């Protein structure tokens, strides 16, 4: 049972990594921490799969929830331990500004355009275009209604296309 779980997690690892990166503002260190924490919850049965959705949708949901919890925890820590200037510095680091600078122009443009979208729009586009999910599956991962996911998808796609188009024209 445990081996089967590990095997399934292993098959999903690349996708899980991509999703963890997306949930963590593309910060590699944070994404690694979040993914490890999500695996820990899964293998220690703190998060249990009840078969309501596909295994992949469920794992993505766990990663998303873990990333949100970790982000909140970090934000709380930052608020407690640093002044406002320090906080903005740390937030910039979690976005992986230094990492982005190393990437290709197209990739950078896509990441910047995605960052300008709302969180839900970013999530639905990532799930549909990066992970080849249907909008329905994306809605399950995001825990929103199908209608809401569709709205986020349409608006996000329009906005993303505009931003990338402007970048291409430049």
């Amino acid at each position, binding site marked *: 049972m445990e081996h089967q779980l590990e095997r399934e997690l292993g098959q999903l690892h690349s996708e899980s990594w991509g999703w963890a990166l997306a949930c963590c503002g593309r910060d590699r260190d944070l994404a690694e921490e979040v*993914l490890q924490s999500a695996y820990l919850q899964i*293998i220690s049965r703190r998060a249990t799969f009840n078969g309501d959705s596909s295994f992949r949708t469920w794992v993505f949901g766990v990663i998303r929830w873990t990333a949100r919890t970790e982000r909140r925890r970090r934000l709380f820590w930052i608020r407690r331990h640093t002044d406002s200037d320090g906080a903005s510095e740390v937030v910039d680091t979690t976005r992986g500004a230094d990492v982005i600078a190393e*990437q290709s122009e197209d990739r950078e443009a896509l990441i910047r355009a995605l960052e300008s979208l709302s969180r839900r729009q970013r999530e639905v586009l990532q799930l549909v275009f990066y992970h080849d999910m249907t909008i329905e599956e994306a809605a399950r991962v995001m825990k929103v209604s199908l209608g809401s996911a569709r709205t986020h998808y349409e608006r996000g796609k329009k906005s993303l296309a505009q931003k990338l188009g402007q970048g291409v024209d430049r």
Partner: protein
Amino acid sequence: MTDINDEDLRTRFSALRNDDGRVEPEFRSMLDRAARSSLSDRSSVRSNMRWVAVAAAILVAAALIVGKARDLGSRQQAALATQTITTWQSPTAGLLQPTARDLLAPPPLLSSVFDGVASPTLQLKTD
């Protein structure tokens, strides 16, 4: 403005996925770290539980000792109070001490405050 369609978006996201794949951490090492972390979590929970159990035992023992001490104190106080109550005498107790005759005499069936006053008069009339 150049129009970006779904296919363009897919291509860009696909390139992003390929880039992400290059910096992907190894699954097995990540899982092992997670397992180790789980074990250390469990052992820390166990040690925490041990400390909680020790603290609880100390608290229970302290509560028992305090309870017993209080019980002993209250018993001593009660004994002292009983002793003082049984030996206490009012200052006018001597006046109330009945004579042996009063104690042996049956109680009057119809007694009144005038008993001692009226009876000699009535006796005189019948005479």
